[in-house]
């Protein structure tokens, strides 16, 4: 079969880092991206071929200047994550027939990462985040002797199968919407790894970890966009792991952060009226004693009121709200 591949070629001299404007967000907006042009190649491959087959064929037989990073070719090493038709995928796992759109397949380096050359992006940011969560076991004392082993219930490790499946390809971070505008965010991969150790019964630093992940750039910086869940080629579901850490962190008492305040304000409103009370949600989430924060929200609040978007002053409860209270009392945990 004949396939048309469009490769995003980058001028090797033009990296994001060099062109980033001081004081501006990183990665920079797309119009400040390095000079890029798309070069089209046509390859003859069998129907079952994957994107990486095409890239290797192009590099070997047509244009040796195309830079591509790959190793195992079987979705286990995580080297070949790149943008295929505008989303992060492993090139070795993406069948060409499935990824042909309007007669072609567009392959490029993800715009959220600095580019080294062509399809090779700089993963330094990714590894920095990965190591920031201390992705190793800090074993409980006493450690077993040299000829002994830790005994862990099977069920406890089964809980972690998803996180252990991570191959650190970075596809989730490449498409993470929060990271794209908030470079300090630890991101889905690092936080999924974080849960792998938080959830490990052998680890001794669980509390420290939860405190650290609750800070700025941590679990509460995720926007629930589910891009990571969609992009992960190994079914890790990073967002679900972030939510697990949120629950554990709140239960462990790490509640002095905007995320928990917002959740508390929201849940209280639902508990008392069955519905969201938009009027009280905003001030409560910002923190009632946070004068600066309250002032900052004032202009948007005034704009909303002027447009007639004022929620009802008297917030009506739903019929049978006592039942909602009963559900919260029974299951609420922190929301009782």
């Amino acid at each position, binding site marked *: 079969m004949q396939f048309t591949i469009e490769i995003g070629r980058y001028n090797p001299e033009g990296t994001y880092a060099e062109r980033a404007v001081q004081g501006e967000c990183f990665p920079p907006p797309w119009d400040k991206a390095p000079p890029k042009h798309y070069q089209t190649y046509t390859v003859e491959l069998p129907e079952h071929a994957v994107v990486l087959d095409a890239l290797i064929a192009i590099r070997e037989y047509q244009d040796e200047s195309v830079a591509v990073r790959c190793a195992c070719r079987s979705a286990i090493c995580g080297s070949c994550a790149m943008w295929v038709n505008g989303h992060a995928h492993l090139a070795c796992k993406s069948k060409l027939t499935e990824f042909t759109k309007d007669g072609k397949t567009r392959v490029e380096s993800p715009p959220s990462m600095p580019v080294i050359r062509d399809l090779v992006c700089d993963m330094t940011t990714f590894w920095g985040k990965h190591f920031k969560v201390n992705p190793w076991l800090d074993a409980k004392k006493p450690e077993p002797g040299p000829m002994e082993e830790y005994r862990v219930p099977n069920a406890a490790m089964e809980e972690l199968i998803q996180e252990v499946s991570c191959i650190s390809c970075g596809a989730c971070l490449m498409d993470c919407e929060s990271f794209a505008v908030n470079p300090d965010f630890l991101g889905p991969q690092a936080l999924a790894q974080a849960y792998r150790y938080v959830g490990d019964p052998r680890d001794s630093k669980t509390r420290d970890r939860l405190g650290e992940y609750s800070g700025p750039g941590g679990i509460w910086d995720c926007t629930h*966009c589910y891009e990571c869940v969609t992009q992960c080629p190994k079914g890790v579901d990073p967002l679900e792991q972030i939510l697990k850490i949120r629950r554990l962190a709140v239960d462990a008492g790490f509640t002095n952060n905007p995320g928990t305040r917002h959740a508390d304000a929201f*849940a209280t409103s639902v508990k008392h009226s069955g519905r969201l009370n938009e009027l009280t949600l905003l001030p409560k989430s910002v923190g009632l004693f946070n004068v600066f924060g309250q002032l900052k929200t004032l202009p948007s609040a005034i704009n909303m009121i002027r447009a007639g978007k004022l929620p009802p002053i008297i917030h009506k409860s*739903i019929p*049978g709200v006592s039942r*909602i209270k*009963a559900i919260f009392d029974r299951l609420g945990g922190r929301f009782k």
Partner: protein
Amino acid sequence: MSTTLLPEDLPLDAHTRTRSAQTKRYGFFPGCVAKESCKELFNSTMLLADKLGIELIELTAASCCGASVVNDVNRDVARVLNARTYAQAEALGLDDVITICSTCTGHMRAANKELRESEARMDHANAILGKFGAKYQGTVTVRHLLWLLIDDIGLDNLRSMVVHPLNGLKVAPFYGCHIIRPESVNGWESARNPHSLEDVIEAIGGEAVDYAGKTRCCGFHIQLEKDNVATDMVGQNMRMAKERGAEAVITPCPLCHLALDGYQADSAARWGRTDLPTFHLPQLVAFALGVPPDKLGLNKHLIDPRDVLVDRDLIA
């Protein structure tokens, strides 16, 4: 055992109209925002239902779906709250629950999936609901109005109902994360290449603008934690739409509407002025189907959408 009718379910509110036996009836879950700051969404949905000839029976006693916030901290509560909503729909003999919010769709479907896939979770929920004499049997399907338009009304049918075609108005679709992702929960269309909104835009005489931001996040769910992140997301997506020639945006989600409509002014400093008016899905469809524009709450937007309609000679 048959579901016990909850006393709170019985007095159906004023929006319930009696129709012939042929009128298709749906359970309707408007969600909190459509009842609070985006009442224009609720009203235009009811007006659209009239034009479509369907009956939306509002589940007046339904609670909030959890909207990802309750679920974050306590999934059990969110699941049981939703089970209670489904029990009400069942008690009214309604299998379909129609939502008008992407976030409600995603989280209600997720709760429903959790309940239907595990007997233990269903029993757990019913043990609590049982105390009020309610029971969820697992028959409810949660769908968005957008899906209803395509599956039940049909695009050809919709096209034939149009009386005010949009004269090629260039509309950028903005899906909202939770109506397409994760695919394991929604799965109604591809999470990477959805085209239902484009299909609807074209059916009502508009021109759909293709841009990378259409499936991206509006930042609403992080606005109260990190407002600058949300503002940047809005700015980035709206600029992409504007550069592709969009004159307006359409979204099936009131949370996206609040973010896009509310924060474009704030994002202008960094991303340039975009000023794209953001229509709720039923607003624009109802307009095309002949609902008078003054009934659609077009004056309740921060960025007035009437200007583009005037530019295109759609309203005087």
